[in-house]
């Protein structure tokens, strides 16, 4: 509690200092309420205050983006999404501090977009601009015409955030007995040896836009090392110890987008080298096995009768597959998006859905929003989970909900 107060005081002091420099200030205040279809529980009662403070000059710029979340109790959650300095030079820029980095051409799918990890505490439901976590990094961009060479160095790993046990999005591991957890190896000391490095070359041309990337990183998802204790007399499982641990991962990939007769064609692929997967093979130490895998996507964006449409096919393939691996060898997903604006772009209709082809499940997200004026809008939407309960989306079939967002932009 003291820490939160200290952060708030520091934030207010920083805001005062920033305001004295006459920066640009914008942001929004939002009320977000969600009700489960199943039992009428208010699963989301959230108020959000987002402040974007920035000041830009010819040689230097700064940005601070704190976000304050207030939940149904008096609990406050302050997130510093970004806080960085930009230094501008003739042919290169340097960005130092906490920042969000977005790579790739995919929408709502994260393939080469692996610099900023995800906040999955509310599954994939937050807006895509809020689902990423800021990372402490130094970003160097060198420009040659319309192409950019980018290097990002991160001294400390920022892991993916997963739902707590109290959350409706928490999925309990399926074990025959209650496990004990050992978190001693989960934390990675910030050091030169433990740094992460990401490189990217990108170009924007009249024919095609493309990116080529590589990364020497940590797996943002910890691998669960499972040690079993078996009673030799009865051969019964008597103990289960789980040690979450992050492992190194090398990734190479790229993406492109181009226009063919009014249709935008997009593609993205990444090869992940040395990812650990859970296995049920009793001969494998810690119930894990290391494999390479490919994650790729092909997508189309087009317009028919004023309706913006977009579809993507995504496949994840594990190489040298072993049948004991918990994950499927090939996992196929599709996304579909339709958006139509009416009344001079004040009324917006949208449908976005993930469709799991491997498990025949889906997340369907229709929404309608209306802008009362340039600053105030209301959104009504629904998140509908359907299909096989073993599927990534179908497992949340009891979490289907209707929700409303009131938003004031300033």
């Amino acid at each position, binding site marked *: 509690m003291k820490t939160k107060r200290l952060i708030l005081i520091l934030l207010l002091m920083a805001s005062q200092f920033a305001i004295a420099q006459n920066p640009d200030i914008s942001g929004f205040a939002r009320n977000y309420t969600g009700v489960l279809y199943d039992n009428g529980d208010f699963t989301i009662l959230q108020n959000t205050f987002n402040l974007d403070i920035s000041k830009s000059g010819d040689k230097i710029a700064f940005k601070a983006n704190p976000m304050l979340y207030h939940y149904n109790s008096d609990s406050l959650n302050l997130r510093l999404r970004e806080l960085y300095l930009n230094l501008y030079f003739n042919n290169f820029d340097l960005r130092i501090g906490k920042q969000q980095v977005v790579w790739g051409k995919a929408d709502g799918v994260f393939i080469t977009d692996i610099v900023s990890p995800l906040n999955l505490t509310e599954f994939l439901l937050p807006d895509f601009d809020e689902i990423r976590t800021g990372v402490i990094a130094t970003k160097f961009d060198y420009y040659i015409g319309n192409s950019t060479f980018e290097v990002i160095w991160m001294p400390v790993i920022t892991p993916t955030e997963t739902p707590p046990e109290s959350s409706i999005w928490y999925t309990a591991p399926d074990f025959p007995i209650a496990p004990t957890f050992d978190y001693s190896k989960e934390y990675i000391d910030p050091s030169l040896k433990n740094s992460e490095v990401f490189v990217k070359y990108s170009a*924007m041309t009249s024919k095609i836009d493309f990116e080529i990337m590589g990364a020497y990183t940590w797996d943002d998802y910890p691998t669960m090392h499972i040690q079993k204790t078996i009673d030799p007399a009865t051969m019964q499982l008597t103990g289960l110890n789980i040690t979450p641990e992050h492992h190194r991962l090398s990734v190479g990939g790229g993406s492109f987008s181009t226009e063919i007769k009014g249709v935008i064609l997009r593609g993205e692929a990444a090869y992940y080298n040395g990812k650990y997967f859970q296995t049920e093979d009793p001969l494998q130490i810690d119930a894990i096995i290391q494999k390479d895998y490919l994650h790729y996507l092909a997508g189309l964006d087009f317009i028919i009768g004023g309706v913006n449409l977009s579809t993507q096919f995504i496949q994840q393939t594990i190489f040298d597959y072993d049948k004991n691996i918990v994950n499927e060898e090939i996992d196929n997903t599709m996304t579909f998006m339709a958006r139509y604006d009416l009344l001079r772009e004040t009324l917006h209709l949208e449908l976005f859905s993930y469709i799991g082809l491997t498990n025949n499940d889906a997340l369907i997200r229709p929404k309608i929003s209306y802008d009362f004026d340039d600053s105030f809008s209301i959104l009504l939407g629904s998140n509908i989970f359907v299909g096989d309960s073993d599927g990534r989306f179908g497992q949340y079939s009891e979490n289907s909900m209707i929700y409303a967002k009131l938003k004031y932009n300033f």
Partner: protein
Amino acid sequence: MKKLQITSVLIAIIFAIGFIPEVSGQSLTGEQIVEKAYNRATGDDQTSDLTMTLTNKSGNQRIRKIKQFTKDLGEVEKSIMFFLTPADVKNTSFMSWSYDSDQNDDQWIYLPALKKTKRISSDSKSDYFMGSDFTYDDLGDRKLEDDTHKLLREETIDGKACYVVESVSKDEDYMYIKTITWIIKDNFIGLKKEFYDEDEDLLKILSIKKYEEISGLLIITNSEMKNVQKNHKTSMVLNNVQINTSISVSKFTERMMMRGL
């Protein structure tokens, strides 16, 4: 001396004959008039602050402010827009490269919330720009050969002698079946334009409220598009117009889209 006088008269007559097609509208075809209007000099580059005021039929107004840069590089014209207001689109930028050839425009949008530059389809030319009464096509350079042009008559409006030219789209699916433009004879500025929908009913009227001489060039600084069927309108006012300031080509890159103003 007399020989010199005769020669001078002959040269004068030849120049006069040579100039006749340029000064007399009777011998200009509809296509030639529109070509002159399309090719009217507007400078090699331009910077301006654009304010769009959207007024609905109840008289309520919404205001959009944009900083825009344009550069003509010969075969390609590049432009970049930075959205300043309203708050929910602040720091969004839009870049377009338009080609003299048949090649489709290249267009990108940078969405600051998503921190992503997206290539978007140039097929959206019939979409309305930011909810205004201007489509992307209304704001861009329509190609001369996209329509069949016919000089209907000459007429004086607002005290200015104009050619009245009808332009019929060659593409049957185009949102306007035809347009009629009043082009000032003296300077080839399109003073008024009527847009007709697929039923040949009048849909919109573009009126030029003001044009100014800036750096020796005539620049339209105040225009209004009115949708007569739905009774709403959009005014577009340019301020701080600067011409030929040698804007760097590097202004029209992803780096600048993401960096903003």
